[in-house]
């Protein structure tokens, strides 16, 4: 009666749980973008994915360039702190390498869609900021109503329930209880909204480490389908306390991917050219690793008390 283990290599987890055509939600907000898992989807040539993420970041840009994506749902499609996403632009403006459809919202609306999905309600109302925007003309699924309590105008935001949530976090135990610190973004909400959840972590730790600090758990193990250890799994984004954001990489990417050829070369080098994240990290090299490692800055332990 033992449960099947949730510890699964990235390759197998992606093979088993990500299907062509899935609505895939990626976690992370600047922090903890699941590059290791996303790259594996590219290598496995997943197709016709519908991808949702507030900030698609370089990851979704690469998946678009690699032809994995047919539809994106987002609120800010840029290279944070640098500029635009070139593959995303080419796909939207010129249909290169293939046209994608897109569906954009505001940050708040994306967060609210996830929240409603996680909460198991069909919609939640929010204050009517977007009603003053041209966005609403293009989003028929955003309805408005006059509040039955205040008669103020409200915008109704429909739930989103992705097929799968793909997340990177600091640590988990083998039951799949996921712990995170630093900036969460919508990780908790996309996980609870989604039907399946796969999570890469910097470290698989003893159950005791997790259970000695239950308030750090953002996703309960019972709702996690697969978890795997992928050190540096969020590079070039970062994992709080493990390594820094590789801002230089984001800048170089901006330069390198301005042409289709440049983008191809990038994918060949950093995605197709490595078999897995371990090879990617080797390619990154010791010097880069040393540069991005961070000095420790620890929290103090807190006492939960032994109530035995």
């Amino acid at each position, binding site marked *: *009666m*033992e*449960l099947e283990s949730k510890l699964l290599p990235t390759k197998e987890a992606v093979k088993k749980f990500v299907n062509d055509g899935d609505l895939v939600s990626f976690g992370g907000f600047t922090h903890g973008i699941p590059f290791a898992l996303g790259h594996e989807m590219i290598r496995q040539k997943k197709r016709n994915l519908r991808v949702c993420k507030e900030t698609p970041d370089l990851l979704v840009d690469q998946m678009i360039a690699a032809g994995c994506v047919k539809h994106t749902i987002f609120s800010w499609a840029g290279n944070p702190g640098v500029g635009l996403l070139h593959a995303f632009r080419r796909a939207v403006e010129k249909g290169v390498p293939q046209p994608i459809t897109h569906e954009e919202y505001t940050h708040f609306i994306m967060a609210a869609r996830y929240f409603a999905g*996680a*909460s*198991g*309600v069909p919609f939640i109302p929010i204050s009517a900021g977007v009603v003053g925007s041209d966005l609403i003309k293009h989003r028929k699924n955003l309805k408005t109503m006059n509040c039955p309590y205040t008669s103020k105008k409200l915008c109704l935001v429909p739930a989103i329930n992705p097929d799968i949530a793909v997340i990177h976090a600091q640590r988990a*135990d083998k*039951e799949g*209880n996921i712990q995170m610190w630093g900036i969460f973004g919508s990780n*908790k909400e996309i996980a*609870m909204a989604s039907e399946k959840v796969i999570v890469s972590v910097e470290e698989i730790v003893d159950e005791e480490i*997790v*259970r*000695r600090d*239950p*308030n750090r*758990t*953002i*996703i*309960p*193990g*019972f*709702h996690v389908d697969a978890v795997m250890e992928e050190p540096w799994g969020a590079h070039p984004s970062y994992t709080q306390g493990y390594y820094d954001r590789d801002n230089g990489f984001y800048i170089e990417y901006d330069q390198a991917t301005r042409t289709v050829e440049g983008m191809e070369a990038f994918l060949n080098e950093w995605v197709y050219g490595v078999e897995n994240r371990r090879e990617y990290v080797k390619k990154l090299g010791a010097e880069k690793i040393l540069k991005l490692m961070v000095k420790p800055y620890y929290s103090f332990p807190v006492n*939960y*008390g*032994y*109530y*035995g």
Partner: protein
Amino acid sequence: MKKKYAKDYTLQELMVVVAARELRDREIVFVGIGIPQLATILAQRTHAPNLVLIYESGTIAAKPMRMPLSIGDPTLASGTAGIYNFIETFSYLLQRKFIDVGFLGGAQIDKYGNINSTVIGDYEQPKVRLPGSGGGCDIAALAKRVIIIAPHEKRRFVEKVDFVTSPGYLDHPEAREKLGLTGGPSAVVTTMGVLRFDDATKEMYLDLYHPGVSIEQIKENTGWDLKISPSVKETEPPTEDQVTLLREKIDPEGYYLKR
């Protein structure tokens, strides 16, 4: 291997064992203090090792170091796998339909499994003011199924509750569906037997009577003309192992299992 049934057991112990049998492995259970908790732990230590215990207070997959005396006992927080705040617990876990089984009790239970834990008498001028719904109404509506546990007394098992706190099947078979509710009570475990609900009428009927209790006694202690299953039979007694587990491991201090 033949089961060795216990000869020495109490009615409470029997109720725990009977409730435990209602649980299947890997289910996610919204646990209440007392018999539901003992039943869940017993199931976890026997046929359902991968049960997930969630308490209304938001503690997820707790492994308490001692017997918790309330759903917010600190021993449910120390060493648990996760803690959600109140709105998350009800939204992300219950309303999101992650909860397979909820346990409920009540001051009055009627033949459609509706539960009253609000008032005896009139709502505005109550004879007895009870604690109210708590999460009861929410669990009754949103858990995939509900197990009701209660002492079998005539004043408790009434034809119609004074106040519907937690909806069972309401007053007719389609009533839940009309309101958009799924689930509903699947079993009622009492000190005298186990009752279930007729698929067509949603009326409660007697399915099992506990050893030493007669069907007649049960009918006498029920406030309406209780229907009896054509295949009614005696409740399977607890095994020796189950009783030993309860007495020696699960509630050795006898907090809930008085002897």
